[in-house]
């Protein structure tokens, strides 16, 4: 079952640290970083089927860092993060994807991007019909299907 695996305190700490390295907060865009409490809580609550890969990724990260990631000097931390992304394979890709998918559904982030805070259904979206005269050159050029004999 997905929920049989849980993250240790150390793994949670490393997850928060690496998440902030992927997406730090920005005053310019008025958005939190991916280490924000609400986003971290969303990640942990919805890991589900990704838990095993994320745990594998965090184990790999722990081996690379040799200590809590946050305790490394900034330059060393950057080096570990770079190595993690290069050598982490599917597990690292899964961890990054989990961070991104939770970050880019946060209300504050979507608001900053100018996106509506709602599901697509039932309101949908309006699509401009567009200028179909663009098709006139294609019609004028014409053409024919390849003959079969």
């Amino acid at each position: 079952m997905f929920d049989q695996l849980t993250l240790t305190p150390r793994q949670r700490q490393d997850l928060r640290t690496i998440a902030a390295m992927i997406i730090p907060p920005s005053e310019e865009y008025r958005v939190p970083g991916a280490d924000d409490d609400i986003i971290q809580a969303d990640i942990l609550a919805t890991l589900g089927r990704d838990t095993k890969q994320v745990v594998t990724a965090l184990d790999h990260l722990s081996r690379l860092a040799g200590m809590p990631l946050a305790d490394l000097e900034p330059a060393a931390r950057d080096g570990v993060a770079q190595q993690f992304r290069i050598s982490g394979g599917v597990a690292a890709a899964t961890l990054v994807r989990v961070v991104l998918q939770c970050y880019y559904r946060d209300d504050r982030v979507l608001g900053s991007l100018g996106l509506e805070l709602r599901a697509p259904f039932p309101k949908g979206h309006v699509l401009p019909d567009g200028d179909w005269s663009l098709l006139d050159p294609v019609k004028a050029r014409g053409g024919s299907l390849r003959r079969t004999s």
Partner: protein
Amino acid sequence: MKDPVDVLIIGAGASGAAVAWSLAETKMHILCLEQGGWMNPAEYPSTGRDWEAKFYGEWSSSPNVRGRPEDYPINDDNSPIKVVNYNAVGGSTVMYTAHWPRLHPSDFKVKTLDGVADDWPIDYDALTRFFEENDRMMGTSGLSGDPLSPLTHPPMPQQPLGLSGAIIGKAMNKLGWHWWPSDTTVATMDYEGRARCINLGHCTPACAQGAKSSTDITYWPHAIRAGVELRTHCRVREITTDENGMASGVVYYDKDGVEQFQPAHVVIIACNGVGTPRLLLNSASGRFPNGLANSSGLVGKNLMFHPYAQIYGFVKEPTDSNRAPPTCLWSKEFYDTDLSRGFVRGYGIQFGRGAGPVFEAVASEQKGILPWGADHHRVFRKLNGHRLAVSAICEDLPEEHNRVTLDPVLKDSHGIPAPKIDYTISENSRKMMEHGLARGREILETAGATDICINNPIPWGGWHLLGTARMGTDPERSVVNEWGRAHDVKNLFIVDGSIFVTSGGVNPTSTIQALALYIADQMKQRLANLFD
């Protein structure tokens, strides 16, 4: 012992639904067994805020990722293209882009015209009225009159051009290349009980509005009203045969997992180009030691996928992003053979309108164009909502080494051996893909796109499962005859994409369903001597 049925159909997807509906007018007792269940649109991804995240899990197009009880695993480790499908009433029409081209007349004459592969035993004209009938039943939208595509008469107008379509159209006009609004099975007006499209955005993993046609909401309600029985959550293990070598029925597991035997006078397989050879190979017996209907040895061979070469980039203007059906236009500029290009046959192009924010972030991070750290936000705002995609859908020619076999270890939840895929992209296809990428780059650069990336092939692009029980007049070179009946078993029919002889360079579902209706019509015409 259950009472025998006249006709037993295995699979309730694109072709199974069409053949069931067509045969219903005979008033025979028709039963369809489907391993999945009925869909509930209230649970479709677009009804929730986490709609994009679901694509990576329970709504993945890959059965191996979804892993629902209704799915069966597929060993596709030895293939650069991974199989995608959906198992439910409606089959993979629940989860497709609704892009709706037809094979061209020339696609049925590949050997005659280009000296490769084989001609089909039927021609386009044999299917014309079934294409038309199917378009009415599925409910298509489009603009009649494309000079480089077969003539169609969609009952609904085309989708809006939108922001993305206008950018693409201008670029194609600058290049002087053909483009046209795609025929689609997206309802652009209220149609036969379906509400019109409201641009929920991501058609592929099911449409909560019901605007996208899938056979659970088109063919099946009509078929059931006409008397066809549909049993869900019933997975067929094997087709049995009698002492005369005729199909006698099927062994299946019911919704409670209990093994059942259902006798039948006629069996029709509609399980797609992977599921059908899997079932035939799993139906081996003393009389048919190499699998049912496999005296030619071709069951499972000649698998064709359509390798997709995709190139995409980002323009300064906003695109439609996730606010519209994902595909909108096609081009047939490079569809026909031109040997000066260095390959035989050709490809269609389909254009993508864009992506949602989660998909954009994940894909761009993986490609290395969306950085970690302080610059992440600036770059993401440049990318998100600005993507345009060009995909070359390349004709895949049949090669016997591309095949479906039974995995010696992997089994589904009922213990039935799973399919194993061995597939390589041919040199001809490679050249075609490179050509498509180069033309796609020209299109994107003409549109002003930067940060150009490629997927060559699209790895999770095995949507089209074709050729593994091909049709033909020669029993030594084909599995079914020119009207879908197995050469070896005279009351066994196949109606799905596995009977394709060649693949064309377009999405196949329209042609699959037209073929299913054609075969049903042939059966109805021959009812008095169907087994002769």
